[in-house]
């Protein structure tokens, strides 16, 4: 691309966006969603969940140090990471579902960048006043008053950024303990670093970069708009109804010439990304619908029907242009594509729930010593050695019996004992939430095939029971 003539810069300077305050259905929806998501975000780490004396009592905890992920009654071990993968797949398909049904709902309502920007803009209005006052203040030369206002605004932003970014660390450690450690300066350096980074990024992205994140930095809108089709609900300016634009006075004089749009520019004034929705669907539109609120209000004031700007599918827009009646929203939501996504999403969830219910909490793995593969003992018997790992995924110590299946005459002992103590099974207690390593020696008669397949078995001997088995091989000369 060639540089614009006469311009010495590759970039256009950012035009300030000073969205005007607006009230309406979608504005209140945004407030509600912000309240609910923030409540979940702040509250979750403080929910307690009694797991007994051997595991943390935090309901949702990502315990990186001990490689555990706790979520209420569910405890995920690193080797069960496929549950997390499953959740990610569900999130992906959920995104397809939501996007194909209601367009960029994530961008408009749930994205942290949107939510924080929204919050920061309200602080801005509280300090600087609404749109016009903000524009005036931005143009005004620096003065004590302006500096005071700016400092007040930035401190409030910083406080919000700290409160929201800082809460993130409570998901990774016991929240009450970390809270007191944090304020007394005893928390891990990584906790302070995380809070500092998240506070700084929230402050910067929510306070200053705002819509530039959505338009230039974020790949998400490009991905999401690619998922939309002509049957997805998006914010649409019904140009066949609105054009030609003209003031109320002009329209009264010439009712046939002018449409419903009175060109009041309120839809542009309230837009947090500063776009003009009347130019059609565009990447800068996060479908937050504040323009709908603004336009509906104006239409009401001038006595024209609402919905000049509205959620509408592209297909319906074409149909309405041809004179069809608007379709109810529910009908646009229920269609084969969304139903198919919903079915896939539900079946993955059901499969994961089933796997979660059926998984065993005691687990055995065995690895044979390869050097030497076998040892002849003085009485002629053959001994093989194995590293056997018994995994106890419950938050309490469990007594287990390790034995073998399919190896007649086999006697077992561990490196803590001697052959005199050999027995058909070995008992051990596996500590809570951990893996016990047993070096097991197995002696078996020399008669038999050179390679004999058998299985290690483990059985919990407490009331809950349960067990596992692992195929292995016994080698002879």
């Amino acid at each position: 691309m060639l540089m614009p003539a006469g311009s010495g810069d590759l970039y256009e300077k950012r035009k300030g966006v000073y969205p005007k305050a607006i009230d309406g259905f979608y504005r209140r929806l945004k407030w509600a969603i912000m309240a609910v998501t923030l409540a979940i975000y702040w509250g979750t780490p403080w929910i307690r969940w009694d797991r007994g004396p051997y595991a943390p009592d935090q309901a949702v905890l990502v315990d990186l140090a001990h490689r555990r992920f706790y979520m209420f009654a569910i405890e995920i071990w690193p080797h069960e990471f496929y549950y997390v993968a499953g959740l990610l797949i569900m999130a992906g398909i959920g995104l397809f579902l939501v996007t194909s049904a209601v367009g960029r709902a994530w961008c408009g309502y749930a994205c942290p960048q949107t939510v924080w920007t929204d919050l920061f803009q309200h602080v801005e209005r509280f300090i600087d006043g609404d749109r016009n006052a903000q524009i005036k203040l931005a143009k005004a030369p620096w003065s004590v008053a302006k500096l005071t206002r700016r400092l007040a605004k930035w401190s409030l932003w910083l406080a919000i950024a700290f409160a929201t970014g800082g809460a993130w660390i409570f998901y990774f450690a016991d929240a009450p303990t970390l809270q007191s450690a944090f304020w007394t300066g005893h928390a891990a350096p990584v906790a302070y670093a995380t809070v500092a980074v998240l506070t700084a990024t929230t402050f910067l992205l929510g306070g200053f970069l705002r819509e530039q994140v959505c338009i230039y930095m974020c790949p998400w809108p490009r991905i999401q708009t690619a998922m939309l089709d002509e049957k997805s609900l998006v914010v649409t300016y019904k140009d066949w109804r609105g054009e030609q634009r003209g003031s109320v006075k002009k329209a009264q004089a010439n009712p046939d010439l002018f449409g419903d749009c009175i060109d009041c520019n309120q839809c542009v004034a309230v837009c947090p990304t500063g776009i003009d929705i009347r130019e059609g669907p565009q990447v800068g539109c996060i479908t937050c619908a504040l323009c709908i609120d603004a336009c509906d209000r104006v239409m009401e004031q001038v006595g024209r029907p609402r919905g000049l700007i509205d959620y509408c599918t592209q297909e319906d827009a074409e149909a309405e242009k041809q004179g069809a009646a608007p379709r109810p929203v529910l009908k646009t939501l229920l269609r084969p594509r969304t139903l198919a996504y919903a079915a896939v999403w539900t079946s993955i969830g059901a499969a994961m729930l089933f796997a979660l219910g059926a998984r065993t909490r005691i687990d055995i793995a065995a690895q044979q010593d390869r050097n030497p593969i076998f040892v002849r003992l003085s009485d002629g018997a053959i001994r093989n050695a194995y590293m056997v790992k018994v995994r106890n995924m419950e938050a309490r110590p469990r007594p287990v019996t390790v034995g073998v299946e399919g190896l007649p005459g086999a006697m077992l002992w561990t490196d803590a004992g001697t052959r005199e103590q050999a027995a058909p099974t070995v008992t051990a207690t596996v500590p809570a939430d951990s893996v016990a390593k047993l070096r097991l020696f197995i002696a078996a008669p020399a008669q038999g095939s050179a390679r004999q397949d058998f299985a290690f078995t483990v059985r919990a001997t407490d009331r809950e029971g349960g067990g596992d088995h692992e195929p292995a091989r016994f080698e002879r000369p």
Partner: protein
Amino acid sequence: MADGQDKKIDAATGTELKGHEWDGIAELDTPLPRWWLWTFYATILFAIGYVIAYPAIPMLHDYTRGALGWSSRGALDRELADREAQVAPLRRAIAATAITDLPARPQLMQAAVEGGRAAFKVHCVQCHGSGAAGAKGYPNLNDDDWLWGGDLATIEQTITDGVRNPNHDATRMSIMPAFGRDQLLTAAQVNDVVAHVRVISRQDKASAAAQRGATLFADNCAVCHGPAGKGNRALGAPNLTDGIWLYGGDAQTIHETVWNSRQGVMPRWDDKLDKATIRMLAAYVHSLGGGEAAVAEAGNGAQP
């Protein structure tokens, strides 16, 4: 290249064109951005500084050593010294603890076994193999058969003093006579003794030759190997009745052993390794699966 005459100027930008064109796309002769240029100069400065500070240019017999005196070999030495300093307290503790007390201190014992595993790979695998499974003439250290004893203290002494190590008084010492070569027994008698050993090791059925061999064995061999051939650890005399053979249990190998005798040698290690390393090696060998408890060994060693 564009010279003064056919200088082409791009109308949109006012910039000179390079003069080549591909598919309608011409290249502007735009100067490098200033930041790029400065970065380029900075990298040159950095390179000069680097050459001065660090070893850089190879010469005929040497190389420029750099003002900082850094070398990768020196860095490695420092790392090794650091590592040595790290494990020094552990080594001191192991050296200060009698080997019979090690099992009571599981952490120290575990450290000793791990240290022994590493030392074994350096000093012992040449004869005993990387898995300590031995070879013909070199004992398998994994099994439960021991010539001199398999408890911790005995293994430690075997490593410390070696076996039949010349010019060392404390070494494990025993000499089996070369019954055939030194004409202590006739060829026929040697055959009879071999037949007897094959019977007591349950490899052959009783025979007339074995019968004659039993008498010869009682007269010549029982003094070391015991009347039943079960060996004597005080002399390192092997048990001839079990399933484990250091050189082999077939008739021909036993014949060779009786005729010429065997004199396996293991070096003493106390002149090469420090006390802690030897102790760690003993702990490791003991852990391989055939290690014996000291109490059982005391009873065993007393019997002839």
